């Protein structure tokens, strides 16, 4: 490959990436505008007007749906952010932090659907916690007669589940920012200076570190908020029945047998964009208030920030997660091999592998679909992102406008609610690509996977020692040779992690699978969600284990492979040893 064509390839990849991120989202959103405005030729509706919106606003309980979306989304995000910050404040300067990081990381890659299902096993009226309480107490009256989890009409269950799921994400995002060499040095310096001025570690965190950290995690937090106000899986599995959150209703209208309901769904999808936007507005207002309050605090000269309180909350959060994780693993594993498990027994009445057999028999197709999609999405996304980053790292040419646009397009799929653009996208895909279910689903997955792969690899690219590149170019190697023979092998560990991340995100996609495929491409996640409404709790347990295990296998490989591949020693010595034996 000549230098010219390699240069062209990377530039091309950059354009593909930008188009891949922006076209489906923008076109998809417009695809929802037409049916919402009354134009839906498939059922003979060609009259533009606002009548669909009129119907939408006449829908009983619409504002209750909107309220639920706002309440669950906003409160869960606020709780998750507060919780993550309290954990960081309480533990950042302690060795404990690594243990907590390891504890929370698997939760990050647990699909939302699996997380909701796992909580059902632990928190529902017949769940592990109430079994424990009932069996341990001799006093019958301690057992509550009415229980809030799941399906409570206030949406508390959904809110708690979202908060539990988002906290690890925000926490690990913050840790990755804090681990960047420059920030790490600065933070260490602030702790020393703060301590010298008599501030406690926790006060230093809130008054000095947080102002450095927060601007860098703000965008991901807002993306979490948009997701939380519009997510489907958790509200569908744990939310109240009528009405549920707006996003679940959108999905319901879209999937209604009566095609005219799709117009209502499209209008509601656009309303969802507004609702998520309002949530972001409220969140920013809350930020402002806290910022004003925070600057007063800083000037007050207080050397402690309710240290005892922060510490006890931090320890409570960690204990709660430990308790939950142990309870989830225990109950899910037990349920998956249980014959019958009467309440409030702590151990099933008998054991059987029947559910695993039933599951494995019906699992082949979903598993194959899941793996095919994930591998295709993983390879495509990692290749696209690497070439794009290579194009951007070409410092000889100055940055063009498009390079400055790129960071914003990355967040586009994360800031436009999925329910809003995915249906429009499906509508357009059917018009232009036809019924190519697999390709359509692949594109939808790619849209969600690319931003995370990009963020993860961009950090490693920034950390890469450019002197290796200078040395290799000085040896007369072309930029293409340097990329393939030096950069990629040396960056293999982070590339493997990014690939595992891509697989995990693809595994977990529910809406971007069920919508473009019209349900005709069963994956582990869609089957798992379907299994909840089915009768067998035992089968659901098997699904939760598989959904939790599959991403972990990916990350285990990402950890193991760099020890074997691109390390010069093992293979070479083996060959030499063999030669010696042959010679002898």
């Amino acid at each position, binding site marked *: 490959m000549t230098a010219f064509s390699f240069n062209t390839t990377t530039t091309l990849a950059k354009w593909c990436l930008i188009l891949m991120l922006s076209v489906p989202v923008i076109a998809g959103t417009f695809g929802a505008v037409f049916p919402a405005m009354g134009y839906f030729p498939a059922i003979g509706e060609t009259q533009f007007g606002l009548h669909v919106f009129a119907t939408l606003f006449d829908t009983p309980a619409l504002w209750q749906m909107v309220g639920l979306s706002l309440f669950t989304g906003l409160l869960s995000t606020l709780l998750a952010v507060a919780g993550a910050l309290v954990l960081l404040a309480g533990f950042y300067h302690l060795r404990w932090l690594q243990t907590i990081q390891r504890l929370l990381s698997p939760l990050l890659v647990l699909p939302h659907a699996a997380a909701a299902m796992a909580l059902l096993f632990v928190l529902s009226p017949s769940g592990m916690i109430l079994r424990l309480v009932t069996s341990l107490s001799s006093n019958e009256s301690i057992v509550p007669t009415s229980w809030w989890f799941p399906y409570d009409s206030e949406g508390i269950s959904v809110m708690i589940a979202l908060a539990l799921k988002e906290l690890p994400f925000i926490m690990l995002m913050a840790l990755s920012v804090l681990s960047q060499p420059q920030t790490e040095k600065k933070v260490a310096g602030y702790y020393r200076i703060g301590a010298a001025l008599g501030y406690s570690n926790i006060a230093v965190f809130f008054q000095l570190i947080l102002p450095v950290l927060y601007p860098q995690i703000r965008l991901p937090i807002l993306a979490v908020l948009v997701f939380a106000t519009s997510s489907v899986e958790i509200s569908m599995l744990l939310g109240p029945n009528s009405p549920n959150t707006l996003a679940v209703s959108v999905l319901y209208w879209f999937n209604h047998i009566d095609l005219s309901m799709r117009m209502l769904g499209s209008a509601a999808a656009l309303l969802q964009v507004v609702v998520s936007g309002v949530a972001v507005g409220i969140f920013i207002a809350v930020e402002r208030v806290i910022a004003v309050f925070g600057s007063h605090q800083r000037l007050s000269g207080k050397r402690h920030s309710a240290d005892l309180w922060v510490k006890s909350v931090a320890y409570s959060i960690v204990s709660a997660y430990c308790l939950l994780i142990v309870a989830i693993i225990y109950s899910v594993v037990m349920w998956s091999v249980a014959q019958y498990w009467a309440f409030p027994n702590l151990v099933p009445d008998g054991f059987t592998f029947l559910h695993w057999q039933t599951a494995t028999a019906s699992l082949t197709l979903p598993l194959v679909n899941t793996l095919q999609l994930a591998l295709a999405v993983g390879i495509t996304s990692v290749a696209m992102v690497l070439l794009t980053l290579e194009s951007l790292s070409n410092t*000889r040419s100055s940055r063009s406008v498009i390079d400055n646009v790129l960071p914003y397009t990355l967040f586009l799929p994360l800031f436009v609610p999925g329910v809003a653009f995915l249906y429009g996208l499906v509508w357009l895909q059917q018009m232009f690509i036809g019924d190519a279910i697999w390709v359509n689903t692949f594109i939808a997955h790619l849209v969600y996977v690319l931003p995370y792969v990009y963020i993860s690899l961009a950090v490693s690219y920034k950390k890469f020692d450019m002197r290796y590149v200078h040395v290799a170019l000085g040896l007369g190697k072309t930029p293409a040779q340097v990329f393939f023979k030096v950069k990629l092998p*040396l960056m293999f560990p982070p590339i493997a992690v990014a690939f595992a991340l891509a697989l995990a995100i693809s595994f977990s996609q529910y809406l971007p699978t069920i919508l473009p495929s019209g349900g005709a491409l069963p994956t582990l996640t869609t089957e798992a969600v379907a299994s909840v409404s089915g009768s067998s709790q035992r089968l659901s347990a098997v699904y939760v284990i598989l959904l939790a295990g599959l991403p972990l296998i990916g990350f285990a490989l990402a950890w193991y492979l760099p020890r074997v591949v691109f390390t*010069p020693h093992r293979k070479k010595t083996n060959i030499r040893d063999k030669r010696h034996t042959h010679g002898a």
Partner: protein
Amino acid sequence: MALKLDNVTIFKADRWLLSVNTTVNNGDILSIMGPSGSGKSTLLNAISGHLSPPFIMTGHVEVNGCSMTTMPAHQRGVGVMFQDALLFDHMTVGQNIMFAMPQTMKAKEKEKAVIDMLSAVGLDGLEKRAPNELSGGQQSRVSLLRTLAAQPNVVLLDEPFSQLDSHLREQIRTWTFEQLKHRQIPSVLVTHDMDDAIAAGGEIMELSSC
């Protein structure tokens, strides 16, 4: 092969940073000294083709009368060495050196050349080792062998000895300069240490901080 820096002037955005006008003859080593921020490494980047904004260069970098000013880095034949050996960890010691050899050489020739090069500097039989199994001094020597294997027109040394212990330092330094002089390669050395510059035995240039 002589390196000519013909009225090379470097600006940081609009601000003047440094001007150099000199010729380094074959086998000579030009030593550049000066406080940090005076643009020592930037000058090396300008010669190797890695100057990036906000730095701008005027004038010409010539090798044997040919201007390299607009050439991309990989076509210049300018080998660079840093204070770290920067051996590629995913290759063996031998592969590191073979990677640098010209593509016109056959695999067998390369293998033989590697064995000869290593034994000439007392590193016999290390070709199958992983770089990180070598001591610091051994890594520095392999790093220079790798640079030389590419048959460079010019070699740039960016404080290459500052990571080494003092007793190793003199030994590696003497050996490095011998190798460069023996092969008649014009070189530029950036250093903080006057001893390095004196040992190099060539012109010593002091950059001022601006």
